[in-house]
């Protein structure tokens, strides 16, 4: 009897979930019929791209709804010059490189961190705390923390800089590659070739910056901005909300990721970013120079700033490999349109970062899309 009740409640739950999926799909279908033109929605975050593929969401959407991949993969948007700087530092005998796993296989001019690893001075860390610990454990080496990530990850870097300052851990420094999402969205909308109608906004960046951060995109560019989580139901409901707005001729700010995203965001984390970093102009792969779009350590923390410590400047370099990651990141082409895709550039032999990163669009297409090459 208990089992029957258990079964019944689960069936009700399934039904409830299915109803929500059908409602969302109806909203999407109706919007497409009503608007009678192609709708282009940019999914900013690489993790959305992967989730959309993994859950087979594309095949459930009408043909007129096109999903564009955006620049929301921090490893992918890191300029080639930053990567080459990391490899130069890895060559130094006095340095230990502490990096998040995703950066390890990104190719530079002279191999990758993976090829440098044989020297024993490249350590993969899961947290900035581990990078600082590495410095404490190795006082005779300078630990350089390869701090890549958006606003989701920058506060974690700020926390360890604080600890390094307080405990005077002088053999620790940060090579900040942190970037800000909203300036990149603005840059995309200010570009000439874009056809973006709306944004599916990143879920976990929004946990930190609050969904209010996208208000300026809605106000200045009249594009719907909807924050969604990464589960399939979240994504479908996020897309449905965007379609509802487009069909009604509206542009609004909304979040469906109510479990963890608030309007204000995590103010403690925002304060940490503001205390240790300041916005600076920086180079993004594919987007070029964007004003006030990167985070650099404030001057009073120069001691912990690897750029200052080793007297390095980032100068953007030309990519001669034929890699078209830049265009993929702006949603201008899809990976199969790149000559290298699935030919010389595969997940085993990546040419560009979009094929390396677990959030990379090219990697997602390669792994999950059957249509490998367009004719």
């Amino acid at each position, binding site marked *: 009897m208990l089992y029957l009740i258990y079964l019944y409640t689960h069936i009700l739950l399934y039904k409830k*979930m299915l109803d929500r999926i059908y409602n969302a799909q109806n909203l999407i279908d109706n919007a497409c019929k009503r608007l009678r033109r192609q709708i282009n929605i940019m999914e900013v975050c690489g993790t959305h791209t992967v989730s959309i593929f993994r859950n087979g969401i594309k095949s459930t959407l009408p043909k007129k709804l096109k999903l564009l991949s955006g620049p929301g993969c921090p490893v992918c948007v890191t300029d080639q010059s930053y990567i080459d700087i990391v490899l130069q530092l890895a060559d130094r005998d006095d340095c230990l490189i502490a990096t998040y796993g*995703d950066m390890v296989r990104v190719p530079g001019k002279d191999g990758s961190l993976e090829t440098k690893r044989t020297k024993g001075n490249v350590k993969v860390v899961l947290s900035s705390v581990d990078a600082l610990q590495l410095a404490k454990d190795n006082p005779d080496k300078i630990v350089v923390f390869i701090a890549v990530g958006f606003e989701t*990850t920058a506060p*974690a870097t700020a*926390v360890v800089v604080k600890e390094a300052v307080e405990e005077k851990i002088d053999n620790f420094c940060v090579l900040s590659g942190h970037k800000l999402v909203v300036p990149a969205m603005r840059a995309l909308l200010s570009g000439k070739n874009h056809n973006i109608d709306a944004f599916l906004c990143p879920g976990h960046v929004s946990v930190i910056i609050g969904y209010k951060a996208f208000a300026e995109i809605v106000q200045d560019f009249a594009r719907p901005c909807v924050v969604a*989580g990464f589960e*399939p139901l979240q994504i479908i409901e996020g897309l449905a909300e965007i379609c509802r707005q487009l069909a009604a001729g509206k542009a609004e700010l909304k979040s469906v990721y*109510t479990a963890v995203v608030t309007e204000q965001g995590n103010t*403690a984390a925002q304060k940490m970013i503001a205390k240790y970093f300041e916005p600076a102009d920086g180079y993004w792969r594919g987007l070029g120079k964007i004003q006030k779009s990167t985070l650099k350590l404030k001057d009073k923390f120069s001691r912990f700033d690897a750029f200052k410590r080793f007297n390095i400047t980032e100068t953007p370099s030309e990519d001669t490999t034929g890699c078209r990651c830049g265009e993929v990141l702006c949603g201008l082409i899809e990976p199969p349109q790149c000559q290298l895709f699935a030919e010389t550039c595969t997940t085993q032999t990546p040419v560009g970062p979009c094929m390396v990163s677990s*959030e990379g669009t090219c990697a997602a297409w390669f792994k999950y899309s059957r249509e490998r090459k367009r004719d």
Partner: protein
Amino acid sequence: MCLAIPARIVELNKDNAVVDAMGNSFRAKTTLLPEAKLGDLVLIHAGFAISLVDEEEAKKTWELLAQIANFEETPNKVSG
């Protein structure tokens, strides 16, 4: 890097926590979430708790629901 997972705080000493996600325990910092308490469900990213997870809201979402169901089945490990 949007990868983040929900986990339950099972130990807490200042800003050093041990969290449990689907039976796996690991360390995390609550420096960015000073209001976090023992027993709270939080979102972990790169070793830090970045948000509380509203369990009522999370229950409306499919996969989070499945994960929470796992928590309810796991024996209570809360100490102190």
